[in-house]
């Protein structure tokens, strides 16, 4: 997502915080297909994904004022809300409540004290796909299943038909390699 897109989204979220319905309509038009696809990928059930998307946008209308563009990119904020809400439903179905976006907010995860760090973190995202492709196929699949489909270690293990210990090991090494790769990529001009 380009910086300008994030700026436009941030402007729409600001408009929503001021009660501007046009901004809300526009944000829905732009982001609902992306958020819906992400939610559906996690829930695997269209009617549930629709319910969650509805919850997400109601939440956006009511809590848009909590968003500060100086603290987090608009896309990060929106995807986090949608993904957490979808995971929350998934965990509730499994009898294990997931933490909510509000808890992360309270925990300070959306306080960004340093704009320079924000810019550096934006770079991290840019290098993700490059670094993911450097992982071996098992590590990459484990991370993608876990992140994009909200699967637990056990579920990834079932999906890939591998022992739980193997999956934990793939994930751990995959994340370590990803972290190292992204950090290095950010230090080297592309």
């Amino acid at each position: 997502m380009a910086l300008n897109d994030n700026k436009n989204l941030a402007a729409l979220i600001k408009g929503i915080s001021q009660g501007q319905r046009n901004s809300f309509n526009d944000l829905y038009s732009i982001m609902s297909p992306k958020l819906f696809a992400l939610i559906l990928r996690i829930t695997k059930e269209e009617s549930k994904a629709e319910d969650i998307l509805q919850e997400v946008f109601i939440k956006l209308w009511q809590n848009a004022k909590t968003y500060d563009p100086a603290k987090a990119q608009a896309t990060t904020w929106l995807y986090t809300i949608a993904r957490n809400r979808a995971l929350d439903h998934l965990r509730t179905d499994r009898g294990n409540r997931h933490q909510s976006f509000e808890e992360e907010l309270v925990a300070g995860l959306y306080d960004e004290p340093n704009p320079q760090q924000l810019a550096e973190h934006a770079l991290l995202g840019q290098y993700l796909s490059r670094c993911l492709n450097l992982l071996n196929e098992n590590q990459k699949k484990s991370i993608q299943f876990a992140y994009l489909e909200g699967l637990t270690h056990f579920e990834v293990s079932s999906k890939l038909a591998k022992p739980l210990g193997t999956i934990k090991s793939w994930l751990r090494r995959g994340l370590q390699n990803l972290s190292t790769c992204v950090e290095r990529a950010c230090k080297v001009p592309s």
Partner: protein
Amino acid sequence: MSRRDYFWDIISAKFVMGMLSNKTRQRFLRIIINDPQKQTETRKWQMTFTPLAGAVKPLSPHPRVWRRIEKQLGFDRAPSPSFWQNLSLWKGLTASTASVALIFAILFNTLPPQKAIETQTLMLVLNDDQSRGGWLISSSQAKMVTVSLNQETKTPHNSYELWVLPPGQAPLSLGLLNQQGRKELRVPDQLSQWIRPGATLAVSLEPVGGSPTGAPTGPVLYTGKVISI
């Protein structure tokens, strides 16, 4: 990277991925709540993973989702929220003094037989964009009596907040309205100067307990102009 940093890096990533157990997540949150450095490290993973979410092929939801959102937020009966910015629209929102006074007399039955000259009684009906009355309000001295006119305004998940709009200034809250029945509000001294004939009042839909910011945060559902009777 030390073993401890490595461990924390992996835990942060798994937190962002949603892979920690509920108990571990709670412990994680308790640790980072007072640790800006760990918060920064966790945000690093949030931003790292965002493009992965953005790479999912978009899929348009069924139009019924938007209709349900509009209904839940009251947009299907609410005026444009640009009202706060477009005060000139409110100039058209006037009510017939005679008919409003009649409603007032019937509902309240409190009209004094003879008004004291020095005490002005003010009133207004707050209408929605379909000119349906939502609340009837009378004001005398520092007291304001509000009566709900519309049973359809009931909503357990929101509060209705009353605002006065001083010319050229941001809206000022007069308090929350009862969704049913009658309620008395005391007008703060600093606001009483604005409650006068011609003044515009409005009702916005807010989270339960009222606007958390001191300014309207939800859509404007009802508006009206104060008249003297």
